[in-house]
């Protein structure tokens, strides 16, 4: 049998081979040519965190704040930069003479997404739920208030009786996200406080209602037209938050127009890449996320002031900020963010190896014959800034004849080690984020004895500092609080208890059409009710 064919034509076997491929191609190609422009009514945000639970009371991390801010409301709300609290579910509050009872007056026009009105009983249930679960922000309230001490005075008044006076309580009530008590109670299983239900359902009053949710991908929220705060002329009808783990994929997605916004703490080269891209705007704000090297003040030789002073002069601050971070951050001389109140007027330590040698000589004079051991710096795997800071410190100390070992571990590993003085490395570079905009969030939690060893991981203890921090926690006069925090921070600075490097700048990358992103360090610009497309 001869097999003849005309030039340029296919025989039966070739047709059989190519046919299915051509068919598949013809089927798929039309979608190649179809641009995915996205709806102007929907804002799509790509984030590196998983939205793996919607429960507002079991997680408290900043990375997953979008579900809490957009589906739920707190008594007050943090907005803008510098952060300020505005009345939200509550319109005002009173404090009793003994400063133990805080009474909040609630709005009477707040509706849950299912149309039922919110009352003080819902606030009480939410607080009890937070305290019972003891997770997320609940852990912040447990030291302040016992279960059963929140009562509904009437439908629109709720009173909290604290264990001891607290000046920061009002700063925290934004974290009391109110759930629909009737709906949650209906869905409780074996006394689980509705945990199984709220993992993938919403029972809030927030600006958006849940329309789709997939823990593997993210969520879509639909604008809640009846939200008590009302709506302006412009807004997004829908918001979608997607988990996109790979940074490069998020960047390319924004540049292609697949997304309208990304998380705002990117490396300098990535920020530069986005700045050069068409259709992308990078919003710049000084945040309140202080990068520092926590030092173990309780272990020799770091328990000696002269040795610590040598350490703080061995770090090349300018080199790190201007070369490694390419000037994308602001020098912060103490642990309290420079753009907050309560900051003392101090110049900040400088990179000065001569001075470091002098302090080291003074240390050696006090400890004759003692050999300085190898210091260990623990860094956060996957966070190159921490590894670079450790390498720079290693370089500075090498010039002083001090050996440094660097060990990198994932955050859960290093954070477990840090919270035990026995296993805490000599130094750990990391960030302190804003959970509430009060100096206690930084100087109090990181250097106050009451927070050791969980948040004060430095084993730093000073009666002088503790006295002021404790007084600031109960003092209600703002000027007095400011003085107390300034004095405490000044002493911690003089004690060289840590190496404070920079305050992060937030570079929020958005599609140029997205307007009115209202950045606040507490929510990282993910409170979407203010934004719109133009």
């Amino acid at each position, binding site marked *: 049998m001869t097999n003849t064919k005309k030039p340029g034509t296919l025989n039966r076997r070739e047709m059989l081979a190519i046919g299915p491929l051509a068919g598949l191609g013809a089927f798929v190609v039309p979608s*190649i040519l179809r641009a995915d422009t996205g709806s102007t009514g929907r804002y799509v945000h790509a984030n590196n965190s*998983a939205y793996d639970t919607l429960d507002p009371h079991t997680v408290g991390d900043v990375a997953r704040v979008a579900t809490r801010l957009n589906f739920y409301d707190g008594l007050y709300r943090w907005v803008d930069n510098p952060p300020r609290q505005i009345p939200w579910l509550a319109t005002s509050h009173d404090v009793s003479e003994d400063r133990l009872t805080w009474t909040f007056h609630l709005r009477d026009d707040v509706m849950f997404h299912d149309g039922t009105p919110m009352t003080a009983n819902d606030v009480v249930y939410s607080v009890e739920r937070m305290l019972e679960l003891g997770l997320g922000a609940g852990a912040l309230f447990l030291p302040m208030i016992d279960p059963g001490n929140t009562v509904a005075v009437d439908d629109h008044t709720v009173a909290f009786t604290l264990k001891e006076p607290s000046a920061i309580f009002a700063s925290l009530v934004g974290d009391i996200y109110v759930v629909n008590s009737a709906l949650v109670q209906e869905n409780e299983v074996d006394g689980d406080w509705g945990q199984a239900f709220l993992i993938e359902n919403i029972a809030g009053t927030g600006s958006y209602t849940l329309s789709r949710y997939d823990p593997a991908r993210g969520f879509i929220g639909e604008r809640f037209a009846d939200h008590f705060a009302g709506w302006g002329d412009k807004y997004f009808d829908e918001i979608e938050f997607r988990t*996109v*783990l790979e940074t490069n994929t998020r960047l390319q997605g924004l540049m*292609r127009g697949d997304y309208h916004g990304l998380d705002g703490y990117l490396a300098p080269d990535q920020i530069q890449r986005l700045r050069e891209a068409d259709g992308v705007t990078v919003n710049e704000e000084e945040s309140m996320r202080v990068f520092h090297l926590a030092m173990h003040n309780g272990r020799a030789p770091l328990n000696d002031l002269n040795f610590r002073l040598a350490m703080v002069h061995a770090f090349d601050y300018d080199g790190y900020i201007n070369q490694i971070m390419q000037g994308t951050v602001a020098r912060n001389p103490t642990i309290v963010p420079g753009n907050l109140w309560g900051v003392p007027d101090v110049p900040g330590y400088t990179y000065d190896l001569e001075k470091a040698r002098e302090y080291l000589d003074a240390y050696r004079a006090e400890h004759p014959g003692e050999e300085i051991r190898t210091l260990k710096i623990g860094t956060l795997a996957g966070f190159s800034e921490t590894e670079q800071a450790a390498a720079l410190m290693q370089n500075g100390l090498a010039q002083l004849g001090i050996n440094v070992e660097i060990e990198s571990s994932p955050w859960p590993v290093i954070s477990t080690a840090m919270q035990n003085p026995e296993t805490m490395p000599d130094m750990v570079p990391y960030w302190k984020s804003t959970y509430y905009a009060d100096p206690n969030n930084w100087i109090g939690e990181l250097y106050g004895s009451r927070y050791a060893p*969980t948040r004060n991981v430095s084993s730093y203890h000073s009666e002088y500092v503790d006295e002021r921090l404790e007084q600031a926690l109960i003092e209600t006069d703002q000027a007095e609080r400011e003085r107390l925090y300034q004095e405490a921070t000044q002493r911690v600075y003089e004690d060289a208890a840590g190496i404070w490097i920079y305050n992060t700048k937030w570079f929020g990358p958005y599609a140029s059409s997205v307007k009115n992103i209202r950045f606040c360090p507490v929510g990282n610009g993910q409170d979407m009710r203010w934004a719109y497309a133009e």
Partner: protein
Amino acid sequence: MRRLELVLSRLVWFIPTLFGLVFLVFFISNVIPTDPARIVAGENATEAQVQALRAEMGLDQPLHVQFGRYIGDLATGDMGRSLYTRRAISDDLMHRLPATLELTFAAMIIAIGLGVPAGVISAVRRNSLTDQVLRVLSVSGLAVASFWLAMELQMFFSTRLGWMPLNGRVSGWGPDEITGFYVIDSILSGDWESLRDTLHHMILPAFTLALPAAATLVRFTRAGVLEVINSNYVTYERAMGFPTPLIIWKYVLRNALISTVTQIGLIFGALFAGAVVVEAVFDWPGLGTYAVQSILQSDTKAILGFSIIVGIVFIGVNLLVDIIHTFIDPRTLK
């Protein structure tokens, strides 16, 4: 009957193999110096809160007691709850499994479609320029790092040319979920737009995953064909005047594929586990992204669950390969 005996004997080994896997992964994951109770409690928790949670989670018990409890729960299909999300791990894994299986099957089809014919051509045209080129390509395919290839493909086909979606499994939220396999669900619901979109999204990740597998298959197929092509029966068929394509594709390939089929089984398991990197880059909502998140969060129970699922699939596929072997080469039953 002999085939059934073979299957049963393999199944008997399934349980101890799985137990060994669980034992190893459980104790290895407990070597990681983390405190799951502290992770769950969050960084604002006090020491007393962490201690209370530790007792509640049974973490204050000796490791062998914890292992015993875990095995008991596992026997009832309960893999526990994620430390980080508090979700049932078995639910999370089952929800993501179809996405990974679908990607792995697609990659397998591409790998076989490219690797087997290329291996045959390489063998038939041994030492020719085509053979040399294919050998270079297959070595390159094995050497290239998946994450690098994935990013390059994204940059070129998605960002520069705009031909391919950048990431994800589908543009919107996909077809109505029936089986969780979007290709099947699209067909079952007659949603041709979703089918087109799903296939479109699958091309780059499946190709990235398939390339090293295809390279392996090229080399195994080539070696198998070369071994068979000089057999007496092939010489006889040539002498009988059979067309060369018929001899190669029908008679030589069947015998040459025995070792390739074994490889396909191993490769499937490797692809399934290797999807971790590709899924992370392409934001594919499967087991790989779950594993990455679990590792970053030191979510030991979730890592354990992932390892068990990968182990089950690996063992299952190899059982299937053994059965297929008995059809391709009935001598294995003797």
